[in-house]
């Protein structure tokens, strides 16, 4: 094969592979956009200010919203963050910095197993841990369930991100006479921080979309509630209830509530990008 024919051959293969990639991209893109399109087209019509601010109305009555469910979701996700993120991030940092012994290996193994446990199992655990001792469903139980769900994934990603920080940075800091703990905190973890924030927000977004752990922990509530001891509505459970009902106007509400949930999760993703942008000029 002379130079030109081999060159043409390589060019041909290159184009061919690029086309294959484009086809696969399109195949992956179609279902994604169709989900978005379906939710927007079916749910967009019901979107109004009232939908965000009003309590649900009984079947057949026009209007009403899912304000309490939106607040309930944000409230329980907030509780889960307070309970789960410090534990998850702390465990991840421990695993990365000191986790080479038996204890570290055990914690890592448990976290890996837990991250694969189906969310409904987590719901049952939270039911046994919180709901049974309290005697009734509660926002707290929902928050605990979501926290248990978040901890292992946050811990595992945090560990990976902290381990990704080059050892050279740690050495540079130590060589300046900075104590070990301060080096970990102010150089190593600070370098990994933008990644850790992203990991946390993704875990939050995932928790906000969970239904199974909430059904038998927070249950539902027709009214406004910010009492951690009382049952609480959530977007996901509201969607579930509306969707399995036999009424057409409730089906429409299920679509609109789904759209609201998508917006919440989307906003969290955008927030993670904004928060983790490097503030320094010329940063790569």
């Amino acid at each position: 094969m002379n130079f030109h024919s081999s060159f043409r051959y390589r060019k041909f293969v290159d184009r061919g592979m690029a086309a294959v990639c484009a086809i696969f991209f399109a195949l992956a893109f179609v279902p994604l956009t169709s989900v978005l399109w379906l939710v927007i087209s079916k749910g967009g019509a019901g979107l109004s200010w009232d939908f965000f601010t009003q309590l649900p109305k009984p079947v057949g009555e026009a209007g009403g919203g899912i304000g309490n469910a939106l607040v309930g979701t944000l409230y329980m996700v907030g509780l889960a963050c307070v309970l789960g993120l410090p534990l998850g991030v702390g465990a991840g940092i421990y695993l990365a910095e000191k986790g080479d012994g038996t204890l570290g290996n055990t914690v890592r193994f448990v976290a890996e197993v837990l991250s694969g446990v189906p969310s409904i199992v987590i719901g049952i655990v939270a039911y046994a841990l919180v709901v049974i001792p309290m005697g009734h469903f509660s926002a707290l139980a929902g928050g605990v369930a979501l926290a248990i769900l978040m901890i292992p994934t946050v811990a595992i990603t945090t560990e990976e991100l902290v381990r990704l920080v080059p050892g050279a940075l740690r050495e540079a800091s130590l060589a300046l006479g900075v104590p070990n703990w301060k080096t970990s905190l102010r150089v190593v973890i600070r370098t990994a921080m933008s990644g850790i924030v992203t990991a946390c927000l993704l875990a939050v977004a995932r928790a906000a979309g969970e239904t199974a752990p909430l059904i038998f922990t927070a249950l539902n509530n027709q009214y406004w509630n910010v009492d951690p001891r009382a049952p609480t509505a959530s977007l996901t459970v509201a969607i579930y209830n509306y969707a399995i009902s036999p009424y057409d106007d409730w089906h429409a509400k299920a679509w609109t509530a789904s759209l609201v949930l998508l917006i919440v999760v989307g906003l969290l993703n955008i927030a993670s990008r904004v928060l983790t942008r490097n503030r320094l000029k010329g940063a790569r």
Partner: protein
Amino acid sequence: MTSAPAAHAMTQEKPVASVPGQHPAANPPPATSSDTPPKVEVQDLNVYFRRNHAIRHVSLKVQPRTVMAVIGPSGCGKSTFVRALNRMHDLVPGARVEGKVYVDGKDLYSKTVDPVLLRRRVGMVFQRPNPFPTMSIYENVAAGLTLNGIGGNHDEIVEHCLRQAALWDEVKDRLKHAGTSLSGGQQQRLCIARALAVEPEVLLCDEPASALDPIATAKIEELIHELKEKYTIIIVTHSMQQAARVSDNTAFFYLGELIEIGPTAQIFTNPRERRTEDYVTGKFG
């Protein structure tokens, strides 16, 4: 060591120097030039990584305000040796250091020495430039001060150190830019400025120019030449030309042993040891 060494040379024929447990004072290496007390004195230093005996019975002295180059083929323990001088091995699991390292007559490895405080006196510049990516140019230079809670006029110190590192004119208009936005050679000078900010007395340079192009290398070498006025510098280098250009004394390491140490000119023109001669003339390494 039968024949008396020349006045300028600190030769150690290995069998004598390597007798373990021998009192160092019984066989002191002759001083390089004068009677001034050495800034750094190493006596019978051994470094082990688990079972691997990486540095074997090294003893040497470095006079204040001189540059000592450490040369030798890859894997001969050059880096391991300089890292023992500011206790960087403390953090490596399985690493063990035996022997004595004196800075200003004080043993670094005695139990009363805090390795953290020690490292402020013995600074280090690494092979690859490693500015802190979350910090600006200014913050990188001031890092040793802010992280250690050292007060003072940081603006002044930052400018002074950047000037010392011959970087000020290039970065004075963009001190708030990321340290990683600089070129490789500039980043390395930034790291030197960062090391100078905590006012060390000894500066260890572990192949500081090996990742740089010839122009950046020349700048670093010039810089080392200037820093000699204030600091005692120990520089590990792969390049024998570099050793010849920047150093007063040169130590040749081979397989973890100090084969020969002496004035740089003598090491390169008239080495005492066959292995040194083979290495500097390019027969191996």
